[in-house]
């Protein structure tokens, strides 16, 4: 047990050490030093994670749940730093450190000629540390710490090109939108602290069933179920971090950050923190069907409608970003259907293939000299062989081509939602099924436009198009392997086996995965069963449509666009979320701000408070200066007067 504790500590602290060294001694260690030290830190972390995974999953090591340090005790509420390591944690840390390691290596090539090289490495290692703290936490407080820390690094990295106006805007947007989510999250944690008087997972979860019937009144006499309130508040936090509608607006803009970050933070790891958190707190969510319905509907809506936007995007990174939104929607829908295991399974497969797609996109961007518009690309398969193949594998995994990892996880989700009985399940099921077609369409639209057909449009670009260096392609290859195969190996233990036994809690009435499991025999059976279902054919249809419309007859695309101009414009404007926010929230707050500025600031605050207080400070300071004359007898008389005053007040009165 003690050995394991040391391992966990080293595992968490190694990236932090790397980050500190790369950040504080950036001038001393230079560029090479910075990437070696951080890669070493994350590498150690990955190896230990793999060992932990092996110990827990293969050797069945007992669940580790221990407080390492008591931060403080306030009115009986204990705040600890502690680790909870079970199969869920083991899976998460392995995924996080693996993707992080790949991204570290990839960055060496991608950022080679950028300023702030060391700073970048310091940030991504710091991110890795924060993410590990988040997933290994055994209490809500540390979860929140990790939550905020990953958020912070994310803002720092979105604004990495801080000289670019749009980057600063995007970073501001991410910050503000996440504040909305975090506000819900912290309220949820506060509610837990208030009603459970504990922040420890184990204590809260064991006490939760007793509180299932409790109600609270927030305002007026209306009674709210405590669990529903807590779960929805927590989920609002997840909506911010995992970019669910309507709090999704920051994620596409976050693509202003460097591509490795998009892969690591905004696709594979940080944005899945919300999924992880909901799965971790499944004992609470299971107690509130209302909250589950809410989760399910939000997830499915995001999955379908965000996918649609992906079809009309032309920036290669934005296509992948909308795809991420859509896939996160699938995961959230799985959570809503109580198929937590399926959600986590998809989280894992998605982490690999989406990181792969992003890094492939990055590789394309390097080849195209930072031109990101897919309409300018085409035919790249001739120039970038490895990128082409890996991107194809990633895309197939994404659309759920039978046998690829995405197939298993996505099919499981759709089937599980189909079995769900809660409010909104039918709506969600159909949206998710339709989403498969959309996914295939936008994925292969991008794939065909980038790698096939004529092009690139710019003749000049052909001269310098070449495959990216090995530090870029090796991570692509390494990521392609799990993208293809992990589903095959993991589906049985994760969805239908004991992998998450004792970790996830599913009420028997919600056991949708159990229903799916009844027809499950083996992988081949699952594939052949899947191939008879609607989603598979929709995926194929999407692929075919993409091939036909964008590769064979591009004129059709233009025709459709002019015919369905209103739809195109709706999608192009992303349903007007940004405009709405800009007009209502930003504009509204600007308006209120101006109003307050004119009335409150100028007259009340400036006139009375600021200038007034500046004046009164001046007057007071002048008076004090007069008293503080430097003359001894003034000082003595002040003391005597003080004495007199106190005597009058307390003795004579």
């Amino acid at each position, binding site marked *: 047990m003690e050995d394991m504790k040391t391992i966990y500590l080293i595992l968490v602290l190694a990236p932090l050490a790397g980050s500190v060294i790369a950040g504080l001694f950036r001038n001393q260690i230079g560029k090479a030093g910075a990437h070696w030290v951080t890669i070493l830190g994350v590498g150690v972390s990955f190896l230990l994670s793999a060992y932990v995974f092996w110990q827990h999953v293969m050797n069945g090591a007992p669940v580790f749940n221990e407080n390492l340090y008591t931060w403080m005790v306030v009115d009986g509420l204990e705040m600890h730093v502690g680790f909870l390591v079970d199969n869920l944690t083991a899976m998460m840390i392995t995924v996080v450190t693996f993707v992080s390691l790949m991204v570290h290596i990839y960055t060496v090539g991608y950022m080679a000629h950028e300023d702030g090289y060391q700073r970048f490495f310091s940030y991504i290692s710091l991110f890795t540390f924060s993410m590990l703290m988040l997933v290994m936490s055994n209490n809500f407080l540390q979860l929140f710490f990790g939550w905020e820390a990953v958020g912070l690094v994310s803002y720092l990295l979105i604004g990495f090109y801080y000289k670019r106006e749009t980057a600063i805007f995007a970073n501001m947007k991410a910050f503000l939108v996440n504040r909305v989510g975090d506000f819900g999250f912290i309220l949820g944690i506060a509610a837990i602290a208030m009603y459970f008087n504990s922040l420890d997972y184990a204590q809260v979860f064991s006490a939760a069933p007793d509180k299932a019937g409790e109600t609270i009144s927030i305002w007026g006499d209306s009674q709210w179920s405590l669990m529903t309130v807590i779960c929805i508040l927590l989920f609002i936090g997840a909506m911010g971090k995992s970019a669910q509608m309507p709090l999704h607006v920051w994620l596409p803009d976050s693509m202003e950050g460097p591509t490795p970050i998009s892969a690591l933070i905004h696709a594979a790891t940080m944005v899945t923190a919300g999924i992880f958190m909901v799965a971790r707190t499944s004992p609470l969510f299971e107690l509130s069907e209302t909250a589950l319905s809410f989760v399910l509907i939000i997830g499915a809506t995001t999955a379908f409608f965000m996918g649609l936007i992906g079809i009309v995007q032309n920036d290669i990174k934005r296509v992948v970003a909308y795809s991420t939104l859509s896939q996160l929607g699938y995961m959230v829908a799985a959570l809503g259907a109580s198929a937590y295991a399926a959600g986590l399974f998809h989280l894992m497969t998605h982490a690999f293939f989406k990181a792969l797609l992003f890094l492939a996109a990055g590789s394309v961007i390097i080849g195209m000299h930072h031109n990101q518009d897919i309409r300018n690309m085409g035919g790249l398969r001739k120039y970038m062989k490895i990128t082409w193949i890996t991107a194809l594998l990633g895309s197939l995994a994404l659309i759920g081509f039978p046998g690829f990892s995405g197939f298993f996880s996505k099919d499981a989700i759709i089937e599980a939602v189909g079995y769900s009985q809660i409010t909104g399940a039918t709506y969600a099921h159909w949206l998710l099924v339709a989403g498969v077609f959309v996914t295939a369409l936008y994925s292969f639209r991008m794939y065909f436009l980038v790698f096939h057909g004529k092009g690139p449009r710019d003749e000049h670009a052909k001269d310098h198009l070449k495959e990216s260096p090995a530090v870029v392609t090796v991570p692509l290859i390494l990521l392609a392997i799990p993208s293809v195969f992990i589903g095959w190996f993991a589906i049985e233990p994760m969805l239908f086996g004991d992998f998450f036994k004792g970790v996830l809690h599913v009420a028997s009435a919600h056991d949708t995965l159990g229903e799916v499991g009844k027809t499950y025999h083996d992988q081949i059976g699952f594939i052949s069963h899947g191939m008879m279902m609607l989603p598979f054919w929709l995926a194929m249809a999407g692929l075919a449509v993409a091939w036909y419309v964008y590769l064979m007859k591009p004129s059709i695309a233009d025709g459709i666009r002019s015919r369905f101009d209103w739809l195109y414009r709706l999608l192009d404007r992303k349903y007007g979320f940004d405009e709405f926010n800009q007009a209502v929230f930003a504009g509204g707050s600007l308006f209120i701000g101006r109003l307050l500025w004119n009335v409150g600031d100028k007259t009340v605050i400036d006139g009375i408070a600021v200038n007034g207080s500046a004046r009164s400070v001046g007057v007071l300071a002048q008076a004090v200066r007069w008293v503080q004359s430097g003359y001894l007898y003034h000082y003595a008389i002040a*003391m005597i007067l003080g004495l007199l005053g*106190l005597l009058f007040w307390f003795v004579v009165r």
Partner: protein
Amino acid sequence: MDFNASTLLLLLPEIVLLSAIAVILVLDLFLDQSKRVFTYGMSLAALVATMAAVMLGDNTSQVVMHGAYVVDAMGSVLKVALLSVGIFAFIYSRRYLSDRNLFKGEFYVLGLLAILGMMIMVSAGSFLSLYLGLELLALSLYALVAFDGDSKPGSEAAMKYFVLGALASGMLLYGISMIYGATGVLDFAGVAKVIASGQADQTVLTFGLVFVLIGIAFKFGAVPFHMWVPDVYQGAPVVVTAFLGSVPKIAAFAMAMRILAESMGGLGPEMGWQGWQGMLIILAVLSLALGNIVALVQDNIKRMLAYSTISHVGFIFLGLLAGGDKGYSAAMFYTIIYALTAVGGFGLLAILSRKGVEAENLHDLKGLNKRSPWLAAMMLLIVFSMAGVPPTVGFFAKLFILDALVNADLLWLALVAVFFSVIGAFYYLRIIKVIYFDKPESEEPIAANVDARLAISVNGLAMLYYGIFPASLLAVCQAAIAAL
């Protein structure tokens, strides 16, 4: 008779320190100016040895020497605190003094004697020993303030400090005599017993209490007994200010605890506005207001920090008046942290001063970040801690006080405190702005000794360490207060 030889073991810290002082005083006579650093080393060794004696000693609560000497956990913790802060103050002083031909043994001997006086105050069991410890401290401080005989402001400040100090200790003594008159005893436990029995004349007690409280308020520098603070802080050599502005706060806290909580507890928070809670409320609010507002318009940083001290004293008083284990431990935490912060702040000024140049105005800090990023970062931590910005420890110090206030149903006071802290944040930010955003006036690199650099680093990082792990110190304070 409760005296036997083993009693002396309990007094070992004081005995060790006094013996060391005697040895240093004599040895220093035979040292050349070039070997003066030996005195410095011995003084540090004396402090460390005393600290070891405190730490290794027994600290189960007991009273010896006919009630004159108290051994308890609070005493031990406060002694360790004041010895450690004293070590910092000594280390910061070395180069500053030798640059000005002031590097003499007397500085360290007087400093050690002041610390001895404070230790006597900390473990005083009766008004008599407390008063004597106070005088020992005060006399040494007067001499230290005037240590630079060629400095007119120094001599003037010492004169003011001496006269006002004499006035204050006269009042204190008068108050003690009143309390003696009302209760007939001088030891704290005895006084508490008489008060609890209800036999003492309430009016006379309150009368005495007012005078005694003024003695405490003067030592802390609370408004309106603060007049000496700005002049003395500014007039004294900055290394003396570093000492005088930090360590004695711990002794003053002990004095307040021993008198107010231990012996006059019967006139405490339960009495509300009738007892010392009311008096402290008045002094605390005045201190918070005046300290923060006047600091805003100061350009001399020593004076600014002096007014900032006054506002911090207001905070300490808030903790004391909230009462209960929570209030007292919060005040204790605040005091220790403040002493550590203040010694760092003034110590940094000492480091920045060069031969013939005093760093004492705000513009002397201009562009410190360009000249020495590390020192600038340490100053940042120290100033943030004073302002109460998380994650530095100052934030938690204030938080615990506010928490105690709310717990004691004094929400309005908590709001007042927050309001003035916000005002206070402004002048702290001014320091930060000057350090980080202004252009340096001189490009001259900062010549600091290794020992001073090391000390300021430990000092600055402590702000961060205790900010991240406040429980480590708070638990110690809570245990000490609980054992009272």
